[in-house]
């Protein structure tokens, strides 16, 4: 029994290491480039992964060349707003579409799914004009509002609400809970893994957004972090080392958020039984 378990664990870790290498090789190259000094050739073939004289100067340069701290702050504001909007609105909207019985439920769900199937490039311009008319030009809210309802999110949450065993809800109802309490105390906590997944995707999307913020903001001091990245990687800004350092700086918060959100990837079951 024991040796079999050890074998299995070794096997698992080996596979995961191979997969890790497979998935992160570009990231590793960028990471190593970000630590290379100015005298070192970046594009040797085959690529050299260990810097000859590793240095932090590229990371410092990023903050000196562009207002990275400012961009960071802006992106945190935009991303926080965005994640809250998307998670809350999707979690709420999906519930009546999954759980409760009422007329028109299926039709409204299909109606909500429809735009996923209708890609419109010109929406960018129409939404910009709408934002202008709402007087929201050059505001953080404008960056978040048009994408605040995630159809993808509603779809995901609905699938998870559908998996919640009806018995738990019925038990709560028998115990005297009204419909709001059933949602808040029973069903919603049980879909925490889905909520977490949605938060991760929302975070990623908002953190990495470039085009829409650029269109709807006109003060450079409100620009998000991706603008900083493009400023370090243009025709006249060719230093790939600083660009790499900026990329690593930009990716770190997403990965950190991801890492810490994982504690919600536990059986929702176990959390709910305690209530």
């Amino acid at each position: 029994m024991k040796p079999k378990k050890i074998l299995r664990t070794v096997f698992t870790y080996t596979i995961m290491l191979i997969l890790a290498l497979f998935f992160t090789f570009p990231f590793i190259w960028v990471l190593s480039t970000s630590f290379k000094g100015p005298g070192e050739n970046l594009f040797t073939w085959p690529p050299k992964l260990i810097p000859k004289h590793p240095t932090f100067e590229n990371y410092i340069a990023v903050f000196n060349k562009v207002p990275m701290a400012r961009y960071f702050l802006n992106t945190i504001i935009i991303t926080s707003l965005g994640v809250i909007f998307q998670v809350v609105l999707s979690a709420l909207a999906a519930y009546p579409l999954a759980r409760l019985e009422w007329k028109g439920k299926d039709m409204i769900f299909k109606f909500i799914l429809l735009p996923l199937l209708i890609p419109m490039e010109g929406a960018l311009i129409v939404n910009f004009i709408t934002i202008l008319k709402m007087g929201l030009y050059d505001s953080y809210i404008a960056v978040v509002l048009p994408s605040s309802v995630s159809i993808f999110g509603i779809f995901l949450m609905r699938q998870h609400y559908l998996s919640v065993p009806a018995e738990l809800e019925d038990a709560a109802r028998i115990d005297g809970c009204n419909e709001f309490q059933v949602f808040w105390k029973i069903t919603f906590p049980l879909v925490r893994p889905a909520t977490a997944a949605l938060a991760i995707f929302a975070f990623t999307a908002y953190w990495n957004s470039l085009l829409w913020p650029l269109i709807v903001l006109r003060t450079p001091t409100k620009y998000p972090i991706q603008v900083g990245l493009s400023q370090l990687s243009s025709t006249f800004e060719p230093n790939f080392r600083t660009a790499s350092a900026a990329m690593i700086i930009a990716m770190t918060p997403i990965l950190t958020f991801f890492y810490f959100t994982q504690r919600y990837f536990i059986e929702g079951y176990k959390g709910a039984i305690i209530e």
Partner: protein
Amino acid sequence: MRRRKRQTILIAVLFLFVPLTLLGIFTYYPIIRGVILSFCDYNMFTKKVSWVGLKNYEEIFRNKYFYEALINIFKYLVVVPFIQLTAILTAILVNQNLPGIKFFRTLFYIPVITGSVIVSMTWRWIYNVDGLLNNLLLSIGIIKEPVLWLTDERFALYSVMFVTFWRGIGYYMVIYLAGLQNIPSELYEAARIDGANGRQILTRITLPLLSPTMLFCFTISSLAALKVFEEVFLMTQGGSGTTTMMYLIYDYAFVRFKFGLSTATSVVFSGILIIFTIINFKFFGARGDKR
């Protein structure tokens, strides 16, 4: 009972009001405008609009690249089952409570957030004539001459598909991980006590209970495949016969400024996507909606 019914309606209205309003303003309104514009010749800058009826539609159907794009995106669907199967297996793999598992999951998510420029640059190093892939295959003897992975029309699309595959696994792994949490571990224990082996557990317990998530993922993944644009473009610049529908829509709008043609293409494309999704739902839906 009547009170519950009232509460139900109240919740439905309350929870759906804000989302539907926002969707109305920022999603449905542009769509309706777009559909109307597809029957017009519209200049964004001079605001001159003129009704041209079906002229835009005729022009799209006469564009030979329209058909090439259509074929390409359906070919792209090939990548979907591969991504999904691998993502499911990966999710199961990392669903264990081993030390450091959270770290590995984070690493697997990295392709999802790696910038497109880096992705295309490093993958080109693999696909180059003297790149990693050719060197590997030549040394093992599988091929006798280097293959032009990105410029040979026979392979170009599939080479890019592999990159999409690489990028997608981490993404769907997250969704499947969430889905796996709905399967009570007691079921696994009970099955093991009954003597079931890995494969039986997978096919009799895991997959069936993962059905709602699978419906979701197959739908989203197929739509993403049909809507593919950025990856193909970054790696082949649309050459070697790899044009796609989304590229046409974008090209009409922001390269040629022909918004009428762009929205007409969107409308036709939407029709295709809708039919496709209905088929998808019929195939998976029956299992997905079971309580």
